[in-house]
């Protein structure tokens, strides 16, 4: 039971990769990549968790009371921002692919000839 969150992270990673490999649509592929990224959030947050501890906000509690690791939380914040920008950039690429080739199926995209 105590390893369940790590298994969830691994499962998210694997199911996302499976989606990417078998994808028939570039938009679907980008969403699968977002699923893979979200596995890192689960992994980082569960690595910093401590039973019975609360959030690292010391507005009402005195410093020194048990709190979860703030460093991994800061890293997850970075992770989410990077994930969002990568998704936006890839979606823009998908728009361009559809404009130029008229399809979003990766299997039907042939190498550039011109």
């Amino acid at each position, binding site marked *: 039971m*105590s*390893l*369940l*969150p*790590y*298994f969830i992270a*691994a499962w998210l*990673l*694997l199911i996302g*990769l499976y989606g990417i490999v078998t994808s028939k649509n570039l938009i679907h592929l980008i969403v699968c990549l977002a699923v893979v990224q979200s596995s890192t959030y689960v992994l980082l947050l*569960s*690595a*910093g*968790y*401590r*039973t019975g*501890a609360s*959030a*690292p*906000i*010391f*507005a009402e509690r005195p*410093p*020194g009371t048990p*709190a*979860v*690791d*703030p*460093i*991994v*939380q*800061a890293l997850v*914040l*970075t992770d*989410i*921002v*990077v994930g*969002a*920008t*990568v998704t*936006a*950039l890839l*979606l*823009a*690429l998908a*728009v*361009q692919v559809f*404009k130029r080739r008229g399809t979003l199926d990766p299997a039907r995209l042939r190498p550039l000839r011109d």
Partner: protein
Amino acid sequence: MAGLLLWAITGLPGFGKYPGQYGDLINSVAVFERHVTNVVTAVNFDYRALDTLGEEYILFAAAIGVMLLLREQRGEPHYRLPEHPHIPIRRSEAGRWIGLGFIGVIIVFGIYIVIHAQLTPGGGFQGGAILGTASVLVYLTTEERIYRRVTPKWLVEVAECAGAGGYALIGIAALLAGGAFLQNVLPLGKTGDLASSGTIWLINFSVGLEVSAAFSMLYLEFVQEVPERTTKFE
């Protein structure tokens, strides 16, 4: 690969048994050293502020990249969707009015999240993302013409550059004041006050500006790809 993951997981410390020392150390010193109550913000915008500067520029570069990819290319005929039989889209007037009413609430909430970065959960990135959604809500609830008028491209560009440049300028100002790049040189104020924690507070303003402008920019660029709507509200 599943086997490798399984092997890695069994080597991890159990869930809830956090063994690290750095997290505990920073939790016990940050409140006294930086006069913040939100330690995550102190980590992001002070202890590793240089990394966050890089992160902000990732966002900046991605917004520029989307702009470049979706720009109208010279000589390129304007893209038209394949002809579809015209199906009028009906939208609910009630949903539209509720959305309009929420625009102000979302703007106030976003600003609140940005300026309370060092006190409560939230900060420049989160507040900026909320502020960015206000612009797309304008698009969804009104007409495209009005949307373009309330978020003109020049304003979004200026805000984005000001936000990105402001962060670096705060770092350079710390250099001029005799500290290291992005060192917290301002008076820290009283813990729990709105204007406390020195440069952390100012950096959050510039990040909030940058993120909200970058999100508005992304929405503007993607909306440009959508053919002009002919929907009538009923």
